[in-house]
């Protein structure tokens, strides 16, 4: 009788022990998994913060460099060109009538160069973008390209224009500038359509071209090469200012849409 009780007890105890053992294993593995997930999440967060800080300093360095280049172009090169024009004028006064026409042509060319330098200086100056806002800066840039005449840029605005955080507007402007340059350099397009839509505190910018289009996956595959790095940089900038970016590309051209919600931004 005693043996029977002992055996029954042992069998039941082992079954109970097995249940506890399984529960222990499952709980232990679950906790390990949770810890691992948390650790990975923290790692991703740290990496994102690090990337953001790097991008921020890159943008600051770029802004500072462009500011210096812009000032240099405006103050030094502009002044030098003004001096050249004065000298040409003096030469014209002294020269005979045979070379008069050449001198006039040269003067016109130098004045044109001076004008171009002034435009470049303005378009790269962060201060100019901050002072005039996103829409005017894009308009200025588009006018400059339209004047060259090879590609036509069509600009449209919907809603009431607003001025948001200048730091974010500067990044948005650089992105639009990059998109225009990409279209001109790679798409073989004839027209670029840029539309800015202001609805409440949301700004949607679409940049569309009628070029040959591209395969985003193929380009991003070559990210280590120059082709993909531009797109990657655009995506990074978008992430940095918390703006969504979508690419649609095919035989009819490429459309890139940027959507920035300024609702929670300090502006």
């Amino acid at each position: 009788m005693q043996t029977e009780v002992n055996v029954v007890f042992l069998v039941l105890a082992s079954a109970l022990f097995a249940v506890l053992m399984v529960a222990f294993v499952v709980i232990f593995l679950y906790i390990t998994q949770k810890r691992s997930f948390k650790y990975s999440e923290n790692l991703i967060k740290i990496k994102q913060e690090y990337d953001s800080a790097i991008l921020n300093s890159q943008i600051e360095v770029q802004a500072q460099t462009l500011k210096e280049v812009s000032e240099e172009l405006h103050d030094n090169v502009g002044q030098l060109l003004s001096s050249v024009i004065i000298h040409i004028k003096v030469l014209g006064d002294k020269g005979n009538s045979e070379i008069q026409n050449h001198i006039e042509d040269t003067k016109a060319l130098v004045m044109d160069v001076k004008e171009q330098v002034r435009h470049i200086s303005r378009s790269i100056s962060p201060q100019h973008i901050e002072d005039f806002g996103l829409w005017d800066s894009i308009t200025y840039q588009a006018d400059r390209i339209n004047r060259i005449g090879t590609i036509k840029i069509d600009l449209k605005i919907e809603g009431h224009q607003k001025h948001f955080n200048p730091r974010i507007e500067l990044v948005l402007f650089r992105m639009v500038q990059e998109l225009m340059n990409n279209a001109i350099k790679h798409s073989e397009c004839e027209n670029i359509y840029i539309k800015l839509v202001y609805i409440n505190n949301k700004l949607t910018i679409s940049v569309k071209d009628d070029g040959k289009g591209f395969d985003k996956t193929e380009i991003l595959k070559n990210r280590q090469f120059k082709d993909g790095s531009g797109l990657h940089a655009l995506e990074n900038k978008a992430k940095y200012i918390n703006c969504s970016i979508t690419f649609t590309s095919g035989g009819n051209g490429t459309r890139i849409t940027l959507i920035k919600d300024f609702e929670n931004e300090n502006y």
Partner: protein
Amino acid sequence: MDLVSFYNIFVIISAASILLPNMGGLIVFKRLDIEGKKILAFFAIFIIVEFVITWLGFHKINNMPMFSIFELLEYGFFAYLFYTNIKELRWKKFIKYASFFYFTFAIFVLLFIRSIYEFNSETRVVESLLLVLFSLLYFNELSKALQTEQISIKKIPMFWMSIGILFYFMSNFFLFLFYNEISKITPTLWAIHSVVNTAANFLFMISFLCRQK
């Protein structure tokens, strides 16, 4: 309802529960890789074995010879699963040598200690010990992997298989050890095996279903 009828219901449910992993396997059949299809094939063989064993049992025909063969097949199948899923080389070697030892021991017991017509307690106990050990080795490796990789354990088929194996063989350890005594004094205690077997088959079914999207 008397205790024996109650026990018989448990036995029938337990035997039928082998259909659970097979159903699970068929539900996700399209998503099964070669490894998954091999496991499903084993469980399909188990249906036949389980059916024959239960049928013989109900007709008071000694089913122990069939059970002895099934035991070897079962060990081979589970040991193979651990062998393929455990990555560390020394533990793979351990499983290989342990399996060689197990099969030698099982044949020795069959030839010299127990008749093929009685329950092979010793072999079953060694099988339980080894498979519990293998599952713990697997969990140890899994816990290490979890520290470096982002894996969701509930989506790992082998995790559910190992839980089922650990639960089944640990719960039944003393039942296997004292089977010959129990069958004389309280045969209905085998109902514990039926409950545990049903639960293990349920866990094996999850090992298939966890592959669903």
